[in-house]
Every structure is written in C-alpha cells, then in structure tokens.
C-alpha cells in the first residue's frame, strides 16, 4: 500500500502537541453502544482537576513575581511608554518558547498524562491533584 503523509501538524510539536491530538482520540469520535470501551480510569480526571490551579495563592504569587521581573526588563522605558514595548516583547514572545499563562498547564497535562500512562498498569488512583503542585516545583 502507499503511505501518504496523512497529517500535518503546525505550530505545536513536542509533548503538548501530541497531547493536543490524543485528547481528541480519547474524548471524541464515534461511540457505539453495542461495543464496550476499555477503561480510561486515570486519564480524564487529570484534565478536569488542573483547573484548581487557576485561583490559587501559588498562582497569584507566581504572577506577582512575573510582573516584577517584567518591569525590570522594561527598565527606564516603563509605564507611560509601555504600549510600544508591548509590541516588541509580544513579537519576541510569540515566536519564542511559550507557555500557558495561567499555569503552564499544557505542560502540566502532558506530564501528568505521561505519568498516568507509565503507571497505567497499576489501578490508577485519583492522582491529578499531585500534578499541579509538581509542575509548580518545576517552574520555580
């Protein structure tokens, strides 16, 4: 048979890119009631629980630190002239390595996802709550 490059993936790559597609494989697609589905225990839970990161004290502190660094980088051209600087930095940022602003959660998820996979043999415990705190350590 011929092997056609069936899929092009742009703007992603890496483990979060992989997760982006696998999320569809896991959550969407045709479900037929006459067939059974393998147990996905330990996978879905992860995605739902990462939400808790958003409104946490840790997130606030992280943002506060980030804003601190932000101003330092902007140096003498801060406050009044900020919009110009925004333009520059925005472009640089968009091209460079990026991360979800609220939690870096794309990474969090794929880490947790990999972890769940590795531990898939043992019955999965609701381990999602560990994932966010783990990722925070990584970021600090």
């Amino acid at each position: 048979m011929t092997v056609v490059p069936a899929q092009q993936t742009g703007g992603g790559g890496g483990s979060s890119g992989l997760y982006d597609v696998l999320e569809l494989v896991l959550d969407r697609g045709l479900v037929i009631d006459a067939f059974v589905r393998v147990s996905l225990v330990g996978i879905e839970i992860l995605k739902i629980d990462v939400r808790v990161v958003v409104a946490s004290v840790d997130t606030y502190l992280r943002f506060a630190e980030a804003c601190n660094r932000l101003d330092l980088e902007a140096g003498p051209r801060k406050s009044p002239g900020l919009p110009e600087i925004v333009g520059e930095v925005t472009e640089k940022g968009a091209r460079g390595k990026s991360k979800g602003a609220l939690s870096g959660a794309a990474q969090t998820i794929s880490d947790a996802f990999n972890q769940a996979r590795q531990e898939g043999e043992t019955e999965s415990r609701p381990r999602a709550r560990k994932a966010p705190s783990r990722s925070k350590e990584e970021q600090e």
Partner: protein
Amino acid sequence: MSTYVYGITSRSHPALPEGMTGVGEPARPVRVLTAGDLAAVVSDAPEDLRPKRRDLLAHQNVLAEAGAGGCVLPMRFGSVATDDDAVVQVLTERADHYAERLRELDGKVEYNVKATHVEEAVLHLVMAENTEARALAEANRRAGGGSYDDKIRLGELVAHLVKAKESDDAEQVRDLLAPAATAVSVGPESTGWLLNVSYLVPRDSAERFLASVEEVRQSHPHLDLRVHGPLPPYSFVDPGPAQPAGTTTGADAGAR
C-alpha cells in the same frame, strides 16, 4: 477473540490500510471487515488494552492513514466488539445511518485549534491596559518585591485580568476562524488551553482555513495557536441512532 474497531468507512474506499499494524504489544495487524456498502477497519483486541500513549498513537495513525484516502468515521479510542460478527452486525443494522454520515462528511477534514497565552506577552498587555495593576507592580518593585499581602493583591488582580483576556481572546479567535469552516465544535474546557475548538473544513478549502489561522497569528501575537490537522472528523461524528442517552460506559462521563 474480541475485535478492536478503529473506524467505519465506505467499502469503495480506495486505500484501506490493510497490512499496517494497530494497537497492542506486539502491534496487531489491521484488517478490514465488510458488510454491504460499508467497511470497518479493525484488528484483534489485545487482552490488556489500556490507554497507553503508543496505543493511542496507533489508533490515530491507523485512522490518519485510512482518512488520507477517503472519509472515515473515527471511533473513539478503545472501542471493542465481542467478535468480528458483532461488528458486521452493527454495520448491517445501522447501514443507512453510517452511509448518511459518510456522505455528509465526505471530502471534509477536522482541524483542531488550541490556543494558550504567551505569558510574558499577555502580562505586558494587561499591565499596559490596567493602571491599577501597573501601580501595584510599581509599588511592589520599589519595595523590593513587596510584602506577601502586596504580592497576593497584585497577583490576584493580574490573574483576574489574564482570565478576562482569555475569554475575550477565545471568543475572538473562535469567530475569526469560523467563516472558513463548514461546522464548528467547541471542545472541553481545561486550563491547558484558553481555546479548544475543532473546525470541519472541506479538503479543498483547507488552504483558506490555514490562511485564516495565519491572519489570527499576526493579529494576536500574544497567543500561541496550535493547529492540528487534517484529522479524521472526530468531533463531527454523531452517536449511533439507536443510542439512548447515558448508555456509554463510565469512562465517558469525564469528557462531558
């Protein structure tokens, strides 16, 4: 031996992926079962099938391969029938429905778009737009970082502003891309992304859709847009006509 089902397609599909391998360790050979005008892409189901990454990828690869040659209705990962006969029976009983879906989705592919903020860029934006946040940050900086409470106050405000920006951006991007698509399916929310939307796009206008994505990248440089496709139309297959609500296995519940 139970049968793992990857997808349903037309019997006349020009390039069914016979000879390739699918899920399991070792990977099980992919076969094609036919019934009337329909065909199912299947393999033997491994006894101990779990949602491991290599199996998820195998599922996706088989569908990508089959989808490259024509329309395939992709099954959700992990669909297992008791045996080949059970698959043939389903194809036979619901032939009209699947034939209709295949006609409807013929020539169309799914593009999934996920977006996240580029942290530094979005922080600059919200600081530029909000004088209170700017003043707080300024005060904290002068105080060598500020007290714990000062940091929390600033952080909470900024988190709030960023969250509002997430909603705005999600709505904008969703609407900017919609005109280039035939159908739109909004995926589950998560903090992993601020936008998770699938677009059904006719194959022959994929370039137009991707051009729209590029325009959004230009107009929203503080966003990291991740586009995946062409994919089989995962988000645009309907549940079977005879499927009463709530009959899917417990594992589905989390996706809702």
